[in-house]
């Protein structure tokens, strides 16, 4: 088996376990983290496909550029999703905190 196939198998494994965490883990921040892991493994699977379409020119390995471009776009989109999710979680934690502890202030910057 070529190396990229091994990476594909690894990605398949990571997809399974991060999917499990995404569904089961009740902590919002851990869910977001698991999402990032899941996304990254999906990209690797995509990248393995890109490598299959590639080859070697003058001894330098190259891969199909289209999935590479798609993965770069995907990484940026995934980052935007993470930012939004983390901002929401923090806002939610702060709101919860404010409703539960009336005597102590819950500030985001302390």
């Amino acid at each position, binding site marked *: 088996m070529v190396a990229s196939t091994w990476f*594909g198998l690894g990605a398949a494994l990571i997809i399974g*376990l991060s999917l*499990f965490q995404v569904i089961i883990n*009740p902590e919002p921040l851990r869910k977001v983290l698991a999402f990032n892991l899941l996304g990254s493994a999906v990209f690797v699977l995509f*990248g393995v496909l890109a490598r299959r379409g590639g080859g070697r020119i003058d001894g330098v390995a190259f891969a199909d550029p*289209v999935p590479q471009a798609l993965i*770069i776009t995907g990484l940026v989109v995934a980052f935007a999703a993470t930012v939004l999710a983390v901002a929401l979680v923090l806002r939610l934690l702060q709101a919860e905190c404010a409703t539960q*502890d009336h005597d*102590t202030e819950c500030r985001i910057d302390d």
Partner: protein
Amino acid sequence: MTLTLFADLGLLIILLGLAIITAFARPAFVAVAAYMAYGLVMALAWVRLAAVDVALTEAAIGSGLTGMLLLGAVAWNQRQTEAHPRRRQIRLQVPATHPLLIIVVAAVCAGVSAVLAWVVVTLPEPPTLQVEQVRLALPATGLGNPVTGVLLAFRAIDTLLESVVLVFALVGVWSLADDAAWGGRPRSLRLVQHSHALTLLGQLLPPFGVLMGLYLFWAGADAPGGAFQGGTLLAAMWVLALSAGLAKVPAVSNRQLRLLISIGSLLFLAIGLAGWAGGVGFLGYPAGWSKALILIIEATLTLSIAVTLGMLVAGRPHRALPR
């Protein structure tokens, strides 16, 4: 050949180990730290998969910025829990965490993994995919890096949408502010305790980082790199200066700031529309002009991405501006 396979397998085992720690480690802090390491090792894996552009993006955005963001959130949560020990934790429960349900979910996830693994092994002989088409069409764009060709010429619409995603995500983050804080600055990124070492780094590193960021954008036309990788590096330098207290986060009502954020997408759109005047259609580049136009788009995109990413890290406006 066998030696590189050995190295690849080693890389893979480290990746799997880090992924397992990320997914299952008890302390959230350990999980995020493992994820950052995972991202860096993943960048190496991308190099091994002959995708250097992706490797750069993964290291910059996937590991660096994402890790920093999550680390900050986890640290805040931890401090809050210590300060208010009786605080109820927020839990997003699946309807019932019945053991049976967990077993079913685990079985489904294992099934997905198994089927995907089977597909990876049995997928028919490598098709050429789009390698040939891109190679034949690339000279028309005047670019040397096929990935940049795909991003800015063949699939320019994806990249246009990708650049606006960041703008709208920023609006989304800002939207979580208190009404009273609207128009003001995000909380300072400056660390609570003053550190001379950090100040020194904040003064020493940015010139090199900015040079490197600009180089990444410039080289992107013909070699691995591009607007997103370069912009991220510039953003990192800005964030470094902000956390060393060497610069101030601008207020969200600042007109120039808003223009800087949206100028990349706006110019991209304008040049796209100019394609009609040039007779090559929307998002087309007139023959001979394409490389110059692409570089102009990428230069503004790099700037906009850098500012937007920096503001995304800074978060929602927190303090109203004094009237």
